[in-house]
């Protein structure tokens, strides 16, 4: 996967969870947990569904651990394992 993938992830994060951020302000390896990602199960579900739609993969909510949501890099690595 590429920087393009990471940019698409950032875009989805802004749409589903990080409502008051700009995609450009999210750094690839900065902690998403510190920004509030993963705190709310509804927002996490929205993110999972959005990731499925964007990357055409199947994700079970039960697969999503705090480690996967740690950073954009971690989400990208998780998606790489899916494709």
């Amino acid at each position: 996967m590429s920087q393009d993938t990471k940019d698409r992830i950032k875009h989805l994060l802004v749409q589903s969870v990080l409502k008051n951020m700009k995609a450009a302000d999210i750094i690839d390896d900065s902690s998403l947990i510190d920004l509030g990602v993963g705190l709310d199960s509804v927002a996490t579900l929205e993110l999972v569904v959005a990731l499925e739609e964007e990357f055409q993969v199947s994700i079970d909510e039960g697969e999503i651990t705090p480690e996967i949501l740690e950073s954009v890099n971690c989400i990208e690595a998780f998606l790489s394992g899916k494709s």
Partner: protein
Amino acid sequence: MKTVPELFISAVNKFSSSDAVTEGDKRVSYEELGRFVNRFSSYLTSLGIKKGDKVITLLPNSIEFVVSFFGIAQLGAVSVPVSTAFKKQEIQFFIEHSGASLVLTDEGFAELLKDSASESGTLVTVVKEDSSDWQKSDEIQLDFDCIRPEDEAIYLYSTGSTGKPKRVSRTHTNLLALADNHTQTVGWNESDRVLFTIPISHTYGFGNFISSIKIGAAIVTLGEFNRHKVLDLVEKESVTIFPAVPVMLDALARTHIKEPGDISSLKLVISAGAPLSEHIFRAFHSKFGIYPRQLYGSTETGVISINLGDSIEERFGSVGRAVKNVEVLILDDNGQEVQSGQVGEIAVKSPSMTTGYYGLPEETAAVFKNGYYFTGDLGRIDPKGYIYIVGRKKLFINISGNKVDPGEVENVLTSHPLVKEAAVLGVSDDKGGELVKSVLVTEDDVESGEIMEYCSDRLAGYKVPRIVEFVNELPRSPSGKVLRERLK
């Protein structure tokens, strides 16, 4: 049949060989459930629980939740269901406010509450594990004669504008009426199998739960919403009724399914807790071939209405007609009925409703008037009796069916050492729902992530602000009231 234990025993005797509850691979018949509940009452007695005592059930949807509720009821004690989404500080409030002498929970929560509960003298016991003590208890002979229909059976908590949840007490009479109103309207029967992934501890889940038991339906439990598990369970357990909230229906409609299972057993999908958008209504139907039906209810009254009409395509936006035995009026600001079709406040009279909020006489007097509960919701009724909700007067935020009191979140925010002032409000998301937004005046620089984490340690996830903004001062009216509208 006038009390919850009588309702339960009647179901056990009538539907003894039918499934009562399933959880994963575990399956309990009504006859077995009767024995489990008896043992549970015996166990509670050994812990000193007696009539009138308050017992918190801090459990996910599970066999143990069902057993606990009726085990408590059979002793004439009062159930206090508390959501497992809550954090330690929130749970402590419920323990103290309800005066609970016992908390029934799992190992994780027992560890979390170990110190604080012992300080308050509340016993915490683990009932959700494979070899819990209650399962080893002997069955006992119980005397239900001491339980009167007017006795308190359950405490539920309503979100309000007081900064803390408000206690709503419901009697045995109220709960039997709740089950009657619901089942007589919807026409459930003993062949129904109801999937519970919405929490039974919440008024919406509880109404469906007590109704299911009354008519001998099977309760198919799922502790946490999971799209694939929901679809698997519908097929495997031949689920006929699925109470949900719009965010669940949206996620299901958008889920890519490689091999769709057989969900033809499903005959009723209920949507409640938040408005159902036309997009979700149509997307869900397009994917699964069944229309979601909106239901309307409140913690104070139980179920109020459900949309079971034939013309669902035209009236998808309606929460339906009042259920049996429930009266709904639309009133103007002077308490007079408006003309048909006009908008006003929705007022409800129901045999299942509470009489007020514990310890809050002013709040009670403001919304319980002339035998009606003034919901704070604005709505209209069409000539056929279909109710449409168009807005609300109350100050709370609706997050996917979970109500958030801005005052409660503001209290937590201002307890942060760097936050001087806080205003919390609901803002629209891009799907017709709401988000919690906070606007803060701080004494020094602080990151929004730190604020979210601080709230997350003290509040259920859905109450944590998703948007955090900083300002030099909050806009206020001449009387000092924060002008929230200007902060949207």
